[in-house]
């Protein structure tokens, strides 16, 4: 059951009408109509848990369905919709159907923050499931903590170590650490890095600082930072080339990854290059598409199995996803949110009939002793804080073949070396 938020439009229309009156009082007009619009919603359930009725469970997410990250956002949206459809078609959770409200944030950080507020305090969702947009999401930690609403499986921020936030898959930093370990195993010691000047670059800096010292003889020979949304990567790649490295780790948006690969090809710099799942867009065309033949041999991280994999879990998903009419249904992003929502439903099932916040916490924190294994994702084994809310930090590494345009896994789910 999908609903698009009806009274958002109504409220906005009311506000615009008030505005058209043209007096200063318009400001007041819009605020009072807001109050009446939302009041009815909040009064419905005073004692019970928000988002839970006798026959529905409402969850919410904000995704970049339009804008610069639309490809990813549409895939993430598709996974949630496919999972919801599947669950509801199979009787729902303990007899309740899932109602998923998905808002578009256009990859604008302040919109993500506003959307989360709307979902929690106006739409009264039970939990935020699989939201994307790492920097904007970080802006909601404080609010979410105060509201006491669970946030399940946000897409790749670092662990805020908050009681209500559960990270299901390996963070960017963890994926990059796995890659550093992989290079060490291959005997490559001269590592270069190119990061973007935001949280992406920051995660790479963390990974280098933590993991490189663990491998004797390994050192970082070049560490370049690209301005956000630049289209000119040549100076950075040239600086990397001049440092004569044996491997490169990239943490930028996937257009820049593509440009870097292309520039490496132009300059004849043929060394293994790695980017995490978000940046390599494993299973999509974002980075490897523009790079063309230069993407051959490119290594990508995987938080979730390849969408082309033939495991039972992925096949089940693929059968559902092929029915899905929207865009990006068969992408890796779709598989990821599908699996994460399945895991969330598994937690709900284990909670029985008590949907209280304390029972959610207890059940989720107890997963360490009885992990959820769905296939496609590494086992989800949450535990108590401080470290238990990174529920699975294993990742795979896949290699791209430019002639067949396919990825193949070269190292299965592995955790960073401790």
């Amino acid at each position, binding site marked *: 059951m999908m609903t698009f938020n009806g009274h958002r439009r109504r409220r906005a229309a009311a506000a615009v009408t008030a505005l058209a009156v043209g007096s200063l009082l318009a400001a007041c007009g819009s605020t009072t109509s807001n109050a009446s619009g939302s009041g009815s919603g909040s009064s419905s359930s005073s004692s019970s848990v928000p988002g839970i009725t006798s026959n529905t469970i409402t969850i919410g997410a904000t995704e970049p369905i*339009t*804008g*610069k*990250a*639309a*490809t990813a956002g549409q895939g993430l949206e598709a996974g949630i919709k496919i999972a919801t459809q599947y669950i509801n078609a199979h009787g729902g959770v303990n007899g309740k159907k899932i109602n998923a409200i998905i808002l578009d944030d256009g990859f604008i950080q302040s919109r993500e923050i506003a959307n989360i507020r709307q979902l929690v305090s106006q739409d009264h969702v039970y939990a935020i499931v699989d939201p994307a947009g790492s920097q904007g999401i970080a802006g909601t930690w404080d609010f979410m903590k105060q509201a006491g609403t669970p946030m399940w499986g946000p897409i790749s921020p670092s662990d805020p170590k908050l009681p209500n936030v559960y990270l299901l898959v390996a963070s960017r930093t963890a994926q990059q650490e796995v890659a550093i370990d992989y290079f060490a195993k291959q005997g490559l010691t001269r590592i270069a890095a190119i990061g973007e*000047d935001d949280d992406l670059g920051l995660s790479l800096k963390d990974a280098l600082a933590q993991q490189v010292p663990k491998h004797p003889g390994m050192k970082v020979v070049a560490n*370049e*930072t*690209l*301005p956000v*949304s*630049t*289209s*000119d*990567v*040549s*100076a*950075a790649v*040239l*600086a990397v080339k001049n440092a004569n490295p044996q491997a490169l780790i990239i943490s930028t948006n996937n*257009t820049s990854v*593509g*440009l870097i690969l*292309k520039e490496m*090809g*132009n*300059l*004849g710099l043929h060394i293994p290059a790695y980017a995490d799942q978000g940046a390599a867009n494993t299973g999509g*065309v*974002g980075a490897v*598409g*523009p790079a*063309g*033949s*230069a993407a051959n041999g490119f290594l990508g991280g995987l938080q979730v199995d390849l969408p082309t994999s033939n495991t039972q879990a992925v096949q089940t998903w693929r059968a559902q996803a092929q029915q899905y009419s929207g865009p990006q249904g068969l992408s890796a992003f779709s598989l990821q949110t599908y699996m994460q929502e399945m895991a969330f439903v598994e937690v709900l099932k284990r909670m029985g009939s008590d949907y209280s916040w304390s029972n959610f916490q207890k059940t989720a924190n107890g997963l360490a002793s009885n992990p959820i294994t769905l296939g496609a994702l590494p086992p989800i084994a949450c535990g108590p804080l401080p470290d238990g809310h990174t529920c699975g930090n294993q990742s795979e590494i896949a290699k791209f073949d430019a002639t067949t345009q396919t990825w193949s896994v070269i190292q299965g789910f592995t955790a960073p070396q401790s």
Partner: protein
Amino acid sequence: MLQYIINGLQSGSWYSLLAVSIVIVMKASDVPNFAVANMGLVGAFLAYSFVSAHLPFGVAVVLGLLGAALFGVIIDRAVIQRLGDKGHFPLLLMTIGISLSLAAALELIWGTNSLSLNAPWSNKTVHLAGQIINWDGIVTIATGLVIAIAITWFFHTTAGVRMRAVAENRSAARLVGVRISRVSGLAWGIGTAVAALAMILQTESSVLSYTAGDALLVPAFVAATAAGFTSPVGAYVAGLVIGVLENLTGGYISTALQSVVALVVVVLILLLRPSGFTRTALARREV
């Protein structure tokens, strides 16, 4: 060092061409065209579509440029001239509005995925003095130079002289029988085609997406400003200077600072030498 300079001249040529486009439009219709990059992208996307329809690259580019020029004329007729002499602010804001609408329209038509606009020389390199040089760099730098010369020559033809007359004094130009609307249309047509060339060259060497213009706009405007918004040659040189400064900064200081250092240097030059890189600038600005 040489490699950084060549890369700098390449990205500098993109800025230069956009700056030249800004100057042309500014001269004839007194509008700071903040939509220049996205209007240029229209030409680049058209060229992409023609290439996808299996037209030869050269033909596709020419058609793309013609399409862009036509689009520029339409924007001038449909929007800019209607605003008339309402002053700089509304026109500036109008070009921002055009830019926003265009970005959205391009996203709707061609999607959000990055596309590849491949020229015959894409991904080909040549060894020169021990350096590996990309063909697209050579083509971009050469094209920029040719356009700069062509535009300078153009301003000495009859049409160009008319355009300069309009720039000097609109009412006087009208008195001596210059049809300002025609001159304005011509400038928007040529200006948009030059911008399209810049965006074709830029997206050919990187990727084509509806956000490709964002990173070029500020350097291009700084270059146009450095030329006092009047001199195409000044704008061309300033664009190259910014590009080279960026790459040298990126190579020898920090890639994180490369965009800002170039800006600061140009602004400092402006502060110390308000006439910018050209002499005529002073006279024009203080009118």
